[in-house]
Each structure stands twice: as structure tokens, then as C-alpha cells.
């Protein structure tokens, strides 16, 4: 087992990793940028080292400084957390070449799954359904029409330079395709300066369902249930839950085994998440694979009782998994709310000093955070300041618990998304579990209409 691990990250995930190391009796080294000198992860670690200025490129993504910090402190392993260098295949490779263990999958795993086109190719070869789409941008009308036929209507035409739901057009039948295609190209050119468009199969009210897998270095791979991450705004997740209200035992087992097969097909090691789109008819399609620990990992921990960060460390230390698939049970229901330092109505960032911080407690409540009273939330990094996680015996119980916990949670001095989370958990549609990836945009615009109407 490692004696010392360097945590190459910041904020709540750095604290989380330090927690796991502490419980395993492993010494920790925190690295920080000049903007994070007073941060909690720096205070909690056994040692700390400044690795650069506020700019993440010069600090949290500064490979030479991070590896040098590991060298001079004698750290045997590095945990990259999520974001920053977590899915940087080059970093994983350099760690290996200098004899420092990268706590995560291999650089080959990362490179392979990071190449979306290549990943889809591998998955298709396994006979696993992949999200149907064009292989990149199509500019020729004839080619586009053929691709749309192949994908199957309805299709959505998306601007490659677009985002935020702009430059998209849904086509339900073939006869409408060409004019929609031409209009979409023209719109894209005007809005984004790039007329490039691509095609994807369009789903009505799909759900984002992801499966957590764990694999040790001997290749023993298990799945730990699924997470429903459909509550998203502009592809940013806001609320996650496990299990999904749309997934029954049979489907859980089916996509779980598919996720394991995906992992095995690339000799995957350590933690990973396989993302699927689930349509209204319970058909699922592979979207992509995330080769890192994810922000929303706590909901899986709550329902399975398995500490994913500790498992990451144990796997990296060469230990075999000490449980089998049959030992893994999903019990109860868990939600996670991402509390961001943002204005809950406009979503503009709200950095600043926290004047009051009182997290909720009581049964089934967990808060993963790196802030406290007098903490300064810097403007340089992402706005996530806390994750509020609840667990209860079933989904209704978990909804009630989250509503109670959100009411108790006090954060003053900056704006946060807590009011928005409260409104969502008060919504009968959400409470009934009738969610899809379109839910939040619809919810926000109907609120907007109510306010202005």
C-alpha cells in the first residue's frame, strides 16, 4: 500500500481524496495555486506545496511542477481527481515513465476512450448499440440525406460550432430534410461563423443514464448500478440520482453487463463510467466513456456502501477487488445537488467571501465541500463549492430528505444555486420522477413565462 499520495487537484475532490487517504493511513501532499493558499485541502493535508500562480494552466495543469512536487516530497502516487489532468493520457504516461503511480486507468485506456470516434468503433464491434450519428461534419446534401436515412428519423441537425441548444433543427420525415439542412447550415454560418453541421438520432425525452464500473489490475470488472444525470443545463449536470426511476432490475443488470463488457474490451483498469442515452422505449445507446472518478460518485457510494476513492487507491496499489458482482447491492435511493457559486436565476458566477456557512446534518445527509465561513471563492476555477447528498429508503423519502436538507443549508455572502434546487425538488413533475434531459430547460422557461406572463 502507498505511504504517501500527492493530490493533484483542489476544492472538494481534493478534500475527498485526503479523507480516503487518512482513513487508509496514507500520508498526503496537497498542491495549490497562489489563489488557494488558504484552501481547506491545503490545511488538511500532511504536507503542502505551492505549484504555481492562479492560472490553472500554470498550476493545476502544470505537469513538470506537479511531478517535481511528487519527487521532492517522496510521493509514490498521484491522484488526479476530476478535470485538470485526470483524463490527460500524456500525464498518465509521464507518471508511469518516472515511476509514480497514476491513480486511475492506464494512459492507453484514457487515449482510447478520449477519441470519441475510435471509442464508438470499438463499441460497435462489440455489438453494443451506439448513439447513431454522422461521422463528423457533413457538407454535401446528398451525403447528408443518405446519412439521415441510415440513422433513421427523427434526426437532429446540429451546428458543430454551436452550443447551448442553438443551431439545432429536428427533422421528423425525409421530405423535410433538405430544406432543414440548408437552413441549418445558413443559420450556423450567421450565428457561429461556421456552417458545419452534423447529424444525430433525435430522441424524445431521453435520459442520461451512466453506469459506474470498477476493474482491478487482474481485469476483474464489476458494475455498481446506474446514475440518472438527466437534470442538466447546457450539458452541465446539476442534480444526479441513483438508482434511476426509469431503470428496473432487469434493465439495470443488462446495461451493467454491457458496461462491464465495454470495460473488458479495452482492458480497462480502475474506475470508469459508461454513459448511455435511454429512450422512452427503454432502448439504450452508448454515448461515451469517462475514464476518471466523477463529480457525482457519492450517490453510488450511498446506495452501494462502497467507497470509490478507497477502491481507486487499493486497485492502484495492486490489490484485487475484495467483493464480487453478487456482493454489490443497490439499497435505497440517493440524490446529489451540485451547489454552485452562481446566481440561481442568471447562472452568472458569484465569487467572493462566504460570510456564513452552515451545512445540514441529520440522518442520511452528506455534504462534500471545501468551503467554510470566511472562505474566499476565487474566480479562476469552476463554481462548484459543495455537493449536498442524501440517502433514504426510497425515492420519495430521498426527495423529502433533500427538501429538508436544502432548507437547513445556510450559505451567505455569495449567491448559490440552492434556491433553484429547492424549486426543482418542489416540482411535482420532478417528484414523480418524470424527468429527461429536456426537463431543466423546460422547467426554467416555464418559470420564466410565469414570471413575465
Amino acid at each position, binding site marked *: 500500500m502507498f505511504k504517501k499520495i500527492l493530490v493533484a487537484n483542489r476544492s472538494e475532490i481534493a478534500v475527498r481524496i485526503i479523507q480516503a487517504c487518512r482513513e487508509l493511513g496514507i500520508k498526503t501532499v496537497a498542491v495549490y495555486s497562489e489563489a488557494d493558499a488558504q484552501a481547506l485541502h491545503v*490545511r488538511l493535508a500532511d504536507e503542502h*506545496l505551492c*505549484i504555481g500562480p492562479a492560472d490553472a494552466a500554470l498550476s493545476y495543469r502544470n505537469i*513538470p*511542477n506537479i511531478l*517535481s*512536487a511528487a519527487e*521532492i*516530497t517522496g510521493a509514490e502516487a498521484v491522484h488526479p481527481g476530476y478535470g485538470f489532468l485526470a483524463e490527460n493520457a500524456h500525464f498518465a504516461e509521464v507518471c508511469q515513465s518516472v515511476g509514480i503511480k497514476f491513480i486511475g486507468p492506464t494512459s492507453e485506456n484514457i487515449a482510447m476512450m478520449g477519441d470519441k470516434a475510435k471509442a464508438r468503433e470499438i463499441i460497435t464491434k462489440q455489438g453494443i448499440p451506439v448513439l447513431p450519428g454522422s461521422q463528423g461534419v457533413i457538407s454535401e446534401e446528398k451525403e447528408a440525406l443518405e446519412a439521415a436515412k441510415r440513422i433513421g428519423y427523427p434526426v437532429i441537425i446540429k451546428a458543430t460550432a454551436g452550443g447551448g441548444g442553438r443551431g439545432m433543427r429536428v427533422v421528423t420525415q425525409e421530405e423535410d430534410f433538405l430544406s432543414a439542412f440548408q437552413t441549418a447550415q445558413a443559420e450556423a454560418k450567421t450565428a457561429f461563423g461556421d456552417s458545419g453541421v452534423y447529424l444525430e438520432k433525435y430522441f424524445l425525452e431521453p435520459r442520461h443514464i451512466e453506469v459506474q464500473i470498477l476493474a482491478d489490475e487482474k481485469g476483474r470488472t464489476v458494475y455498481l448500478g446506474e446514475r440518472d444525470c438527466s437534470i442538466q443545463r447546457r450539458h452541465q449536470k446539476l442534480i444526479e440520482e441513483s438508482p434511476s426511476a426509469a431503470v428496473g432490475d432487469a434493465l439495470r443488470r443488462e446495461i451493467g453487463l454491457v458496461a462491464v463488457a465495454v470495460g473488458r474490451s479495452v482492458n480497462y483498469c480502475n474506475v470508469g463510467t459508461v454513459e448511455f442515452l435511454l429512450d422512452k422505449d427503454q432502448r439504450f445507446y452508448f454515448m461515451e466513456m469517462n475514464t476518471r472518478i466523477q463529480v457525482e460518485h457519492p450517490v453510488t457510494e450511498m446506495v452501494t456502501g462502497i467507497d470509490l476513492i478507497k477502491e481507486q487507491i487499493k486497485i492502484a496499489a495492486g490489490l484485487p477487488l475484495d467483493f464480487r458482482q453478487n456482493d454489490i447491492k443497490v439499497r435505497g435511493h440517493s440524490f446529489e445537488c451540485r451547489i454552485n457559486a452562481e446566481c440561481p436565476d442568471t447562472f452568472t458566477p458569484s465569487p467572493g467571501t462566504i460570510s456564513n456557512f452552515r451545512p445540514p446534518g441529520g440522518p442520511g445527509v452528506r455534504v462534500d465541500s471545501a468551503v467554510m465561513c470566511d472562505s474566499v471563492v476565487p474566480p479562476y476555477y469552476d463554481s462548484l463549492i459543495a455537493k449536498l447528498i442524501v440517502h433514504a429508503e426510497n425515492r420519495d423519502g430521498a426527495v423529502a430528505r433533500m427538501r429538508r436538507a436544502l432548507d437547513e443549508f445556510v450559505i451567505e455572502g455569495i449567491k448559490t444555486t440552492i434556491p433553484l434546487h429547492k424549486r426543482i425538488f418542489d416540482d411535482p413533475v420532478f417528484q414523480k420522477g418524470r424527468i429527461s434531459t429536456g426537463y431543466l430547460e423546460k422547467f426554467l422557461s416555464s418559470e420564466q413565462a410565469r414570471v413575465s406572463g
Partner: protein
Amino acid sequence: MNIKELKELIELIQKGQIAELELEKSGVRVRIKRDRTPAVPVPLTEEAPAASTIPVEAPLPHGASPPSTVPAGWLTLTAPVVGTFYRAPAPDSDPYVEIGSPVKKGQILCVIEAMKLMNEIESEWEGKIVEILVENAQPVEYGAPLFRIEPLAPT
């Protein structure tokens, strides 16, 4: 020495006529100097506080120098990379500079070794080395103060 005692000392200095105070108690040495701006005392070494689980000021590893007030005009060259500080290009060579050495802008003052790569650290100013704050073969973090230089022309 705990935070309460340090706070009391600071108040003493701020209220009274004392300009500078150095105190050693149970393995902790504290120097507080009153200048144009109030200085923040940093213990050079500190036993891990038993009671509190979150130390307000954890000791910097490898004995990095505390930020004491610097005489007006002196400039501080800080480490631009993380690594091991060496005063000479090779173990049997002479050090690049000594205290009192005149230096020019761009002149190499030391190397910081990071992952087997030797980073030559250059002086940003023309002047004279007045303090060397790090020992040979000492690990340094980003921003660690290395040299104090008295510049040639007043800044």
C-alpha cells in the same frame, strides 16, 4: 505557543513603543517587527496543534523562510518552478553567486532541478546579492523566496 498568545503579542507591539520583539518558547521562535505595515508573525517551527483538527497555519515543508519584512528597496527573487535548489551547476563546481556578488540582469544565480531537468534561474535585476534564503539541495515550492537583491538603481 498558540494563536491566542501570538495575537496578544501582536496587540502588545501595536499598542506600545516596541519596534521589534524576538521570543523563544518551548521550541518555537517568533520574531515580530513593527514597520510601516504591520507584520504577520509566522512561527519558524510549530508542533502540530493537538486540539484543533484544522491548523490555521501549517508549517511549510523543508524549512522555507517566513515572510519577514524586507528592508525598503531590496527585491526578492522567487522560485518560478518546483524542484531542488542548487547553488552551483555541478556538485564540484563553485557556486554561481555568493553574498555580496554583483549580478546583472539575465545572469544565472542558481539551478532548480525538476525531474532530472536543470532549470537555470536568471536574475531579473542588476544589483548585488544581499541574502541567500535557501540552502543547497533544499526542495523549493513555486514562489519560494531564493535571493534578496539590492538593485543597482533605486526602484
